[in-house]
């Protein structure tokens, strides 16, 4: 399956990458996906999003628009093609 990843806010501006795809033949957790993304980008994006194993206040991780915080958090399993949106702590208006 193909997972479409979209990067936003400071992460997108720092890396100069708006999106990428990860292809995998088995289900992955969001945490595993972030590790795969870091490998592909050759940059560890995890410290921008996670602190002491917890989702940082303000970090938003969405699978097809649904926040993983209300599923199994970082252990949320991806089993089919989807879009994952990644926002580091951002802000409001």
């Amino acid at each position, binding site marked *: 399956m193909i997972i479409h990843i979209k990067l936003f806010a400071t992460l997108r501006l720092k890396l100069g990458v708006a999106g990428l795809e990860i292809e995998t033949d088995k289900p992955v957790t969001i945490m595993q996906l972030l590790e795969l993304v870091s490998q592909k980008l050759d940059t560890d994006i995890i410290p921008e999003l996670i602190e002491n194993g917890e989702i940082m206040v303000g970090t938003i991780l969405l699978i097809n*628009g649904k926040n993983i915080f209300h599923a199994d958090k970082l252990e949320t399993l991806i089993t089919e093609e989807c879009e994952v949106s990644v926002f580091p702590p951002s802000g409001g208006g």
Partner: protein
Amino acid sequence: MSYHGKILRINLATKEIKPENLSKDLAKKYIGGRGLGTKIFSDEVDPKIDAFSPENKLIFATGALTSTIAPTGGRYMVITKSPLTGTIASSNSGGFFGHKLKSTGYDVLIFENKAEKPCYLYIDDEKAELRDAAHLWGKDTHETTDILMGEIGEKTAKVACIGPGGENLSLISGIMNDKNRAAGRSGVGAVMGSKMLKAIIVSGKHKTLIDDKEAFNKAVKEKIKILKENGVTGEGLPTLGTKVLDNIINSSGLYPTRNFQKAQFEGIDEISGEALVEKGYLVKNVACYACPIACGRLVELPQGKIGEGPEYEPGWAFGALCEINDLNAISQANFMCNELGVDPISVGVTIATAMELYEKGYIKKEELEKGPELKFGNSEALLYYTKKLVYKEGIGEKMALGSYRLAESYGHPELSMTVKKMEIPAYDPRGVQGQGLAYATSNRGGCHVRAYLIAPEIVGAPEKLDPQEIKGKPEWVKIFQDLTAVIDSSGLCLFTSFALGAPDYADLLNKATGFNYSVDEMMQAGERIWNMERLFNLKSGFTTKDDTLPKRLLEEPIPAGPNKGHVHRLGELLPDYYKLRGWTEDGIPTDEKLKELGL
């Protein structure tokens, strides 16, 4: 205490200007800014008056921490009866004007009555004078500011003024200070226009006295450190400004599009906060007085036009809501609103309403008098109808009254996305149940900054709540409403609350004022302010029927995206909210509650 203890009363008809003392007890009970201004206003003004009558007053109130070194401590509040909603209006602004207003030696200005001819008020270190403004009438807010600065010749002076929007009594006009900062909502600019008061220019060197300076300075350093280390206030907002939200809210499926007919916008990549940076429009960040966040944007468009914004709300109102993906046109419309002195949220929503009325055939082509078609996606419509609205030309005369009155004039008020006739901002309540309850119960109508539930429901600060869950939301809304009343009364920016909590605000307030509030006492002051505003609205004729949302948001499910199938569940939330507030089923504060709050 961090007040000068002085109020200035200005009678615009008789030109009498009179200083009065501010009671310390009143300051403690109502904190300052929004609270203190509303207390004075409620005591002096009959809630049933017409907003444009001479009996309406216009109050400028600084907060307890305004003009101190507290982070973001530069804000002021305008309090009056709103001509748009008929509710109490309090409209808040940043920049440097609030700081300078307090540096004159006055905490609060009260304007009474109406001038016969255009005038402006000049205050220099307690010395105040009303001057003729005939030469300023008709000028935009930038020209007015430049002319006044030239006349006064004091480089540190600051100006708040109205543009043609306020002069022409557009119900969606604001008051602009420092050229691009706005007390934007509720039509406060039109009240100033009705009083023929074009501007206020302030200069002065009065320092705000701090009760325990050493302890206060230490507390300020601690709070700045918290703000700098927080991901939202230390990195997200400084880098991308409020427009960082475009993609967050769109991806989460609650980005109102096509006048709330949809909740996601296909053209987002062209207009988002990221696009503003990537297209090279962003020149630099702009900070208000004493602000370590600096979320403001100085922008230069490819044709060389320079201005501030667009912020998230105007960018959305002129963008997704009108289905326009032209960031240049959106930015120009925002600049125009700043220059002409109108509220870009309400203007954008009103144009989107007009587009739906036109596409459904209620507004006829002949009414456009050969102007651009009011079709969703037509970027030519933005500047054209913003100007028409300000100058009340053609269909602009109806649009100047805001979305509700426009839709009502065609027999279709249900197409207006407003609460208490004020235009709803950029979060679809069907995707955020708590925020929807906050809109429905806001004391000034459709407003997101009376309780910003997006922080917990979407951003996850201070903790993440499920946006579709309704359990517990009335409690969250009440706490946010009360705390926001405290922050507004302190003279700080609401954005600090992404990182700071109630104990931090009590700490700053106590060290500056010496009032020694417990956190509970401070929160009770917030609750007192909320109830006082509510009482004003009830006396002016509002009932529980007005605590509602547009039919579309209660009955028509979101058609696609992450929130597909959802409506707003107000009916399940409102009774619990009233109960929690200590109000009757009809939304009226009980005698016990009023006694408890000392009202």
